[in-house]
């Protein structure tokens, strides 16, 4: 498995997709520090988790997944791997592992840049380990959140244009949903606020937010009864991830070369 993982990275030598992807983690921390006047470290890191992860990381994971999964088809190399033999399931797992590593690295980069900006602006670094935990956890959860869309990308097979359209709608739908009271203000159960990944992650993350001002405090109080606990959030997202991985296995099993 380590060799297979290493090979996945070698395949992208001279292609800057990983590098540009990680550099994108700088966008929101730099943008926020220039245009917004964040007053505490938690608030800065909250921006990294929500803006960076919901708006940038999610679509990038799906675009990267399309590249990772299509690279074998585009270059007719799947037969070489299957003849080694590398089982298709193992190939799926290793590609998902690459995505997970990318997701975590992206979040850590965002955390590091935001921390540097906070230091430069003389903002006290409070609870750095807890903030780090939340940011890395968001990376894991966003990876799980991207999987339903990646299933669609694999299912539709070899169409980058379709992948981009799917990415656009999936990201937008998820992002818009987390602003909707009708979706978010619902108890845990079989509803969009629980089953859609970004609303679920937001329900978990928001409990760690430090509200400022009357409006935020009132919203925090109103929303607090719908917060998702850490085990519930991870359970739901990882269960969805397992279902998606199972579907990916089935797609690969039923596909002939």
């Amino acid at each position: 498995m380590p060799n297979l993982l290493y090979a996945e990275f070698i395949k992208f030598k001279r292609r800057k997709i990983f590098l540009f992807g990680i550099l994108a983690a700088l966008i929101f921390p730099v943008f926020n520090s220039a245009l917004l006047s964040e007053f505490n470290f938690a608030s800065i890191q909250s921006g990294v988790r929500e803006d960076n992860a919901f708006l940038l990381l999610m679509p990038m994971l799906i675009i990267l997944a399309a590249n990772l999964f299509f690279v074998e088809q585009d270059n007719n190399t799947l037969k070489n791997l299957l003849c080694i033999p590398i089982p298709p399931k193992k190939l799926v797992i290793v590609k998902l592992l690459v995505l997970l590593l990318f997701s975590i690295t992206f979040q850590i980069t965002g955390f590091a840049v935001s921390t540097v900006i906070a230091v430069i602006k003389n903002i006290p670094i409070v609870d750095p380990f807890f903030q780090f935990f939340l940011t890395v956890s968001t990376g894991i959860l966003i990876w799980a959140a991207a999987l339903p869309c990646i299933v669609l990308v694999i299912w539709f097979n070899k169409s980058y244009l379709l992948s981009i359209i799917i990415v656009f709608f999936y990201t937008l739908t998820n992002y818009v949903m987390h602003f909707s009271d009708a979706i978010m203000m619902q108890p845990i159960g079989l509803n969009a606020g629980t089953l859609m990944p970004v609303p679920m992650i937001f329900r978990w993350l928001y409990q760690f937010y430090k509200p400022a001002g009357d409006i935020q405090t009132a919203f925090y109080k109103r929303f607090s009864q719908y917060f998702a606990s850490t085990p519930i959030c991870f359970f739901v997202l990882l269960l969805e991830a397992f279902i998606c991985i199972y579907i990916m296995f089935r797609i690969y099993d039923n596909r002939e070369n």
Partner: protein
Amino acid sequence: MNELIIETKNLSKHYGEQKSVDNLNLHVKQGRIYGLLGRNGAGKTTTMKMLLNLSNPTSGEISIFGENIYGNEGKILPRIGSLIEAPGFYPNLTGTENLKIYALLRGVSKRNAIESALEVVGLPYNDRKLFSQYSLGMKQRLAIALAIMHDPELLILDEPINGLDPIGIAEVRTFIRELCEVKKKTILISSHILSEIALLADDIGIIDHGILLEEQSLSELEDKNSKYINFVVSDPAQAARILEKNFKTVNFIVEGNHSIRLYDDNLSVSLLNRTFIENGLEVSEAHTCEDTLEDYFKRVTGGEGIA
């Protein structure tokens, strides 16, 4: 040396109503080159894909190294080197970098395995040229290097000379023979080019419309090639009547307006010639001939020739 390395029993692959491979019984012996000969679309690649577990058969069994391929892929496939259809590599990597990936995944421990494989196919080691800049011939050579890099006991090569220039074809032919004769590899090679198979193979299987029509050694096939006497006469129909009446034989074929082929080579050419002339026929040519492998191919496939 007659142990079977590959054996299939009633191997079939159907796509809906279409029978791509139909009840194929293939026998590849150890240390020999088996040439699978057939036109494009005859079922050669589908057969090879099934042997490599890249495609599931509709029915039938495949035994390689004496074991059923299904359930034993992990044991069998590492002992095989293969080239199926067009070469597939990562375009943003050099040839050496591409091979390094597969060496890593195969766990090739021999230090100079990549360098040796590239040397065999005449490609430079650690060259900076990317695969995307390779010519078709170079791509094909790299694919062959990949197939032999891990020193497999069995090679399955699907049209390995595709895209090669005449010198490249001769080089590939030489090293395939060397692999078999010097390194004692067993090789299954497919081609639609009859002359290549005739030059390379020890055993030949002729496949047409998914059916294996013949499976014999090259020497057996050559022995079976019919000898015949070809006459160019003024009236082949009358010549045919003379053959039937005077020589009591119907083992002939009238070809065109002036030619007749007599497959009974026990008869004396001079006697036949004299008899035709005595019966008022003009005989302008009389030759003793032998069918070529292509003639044989035409006969068994009941159709047109092959390249």
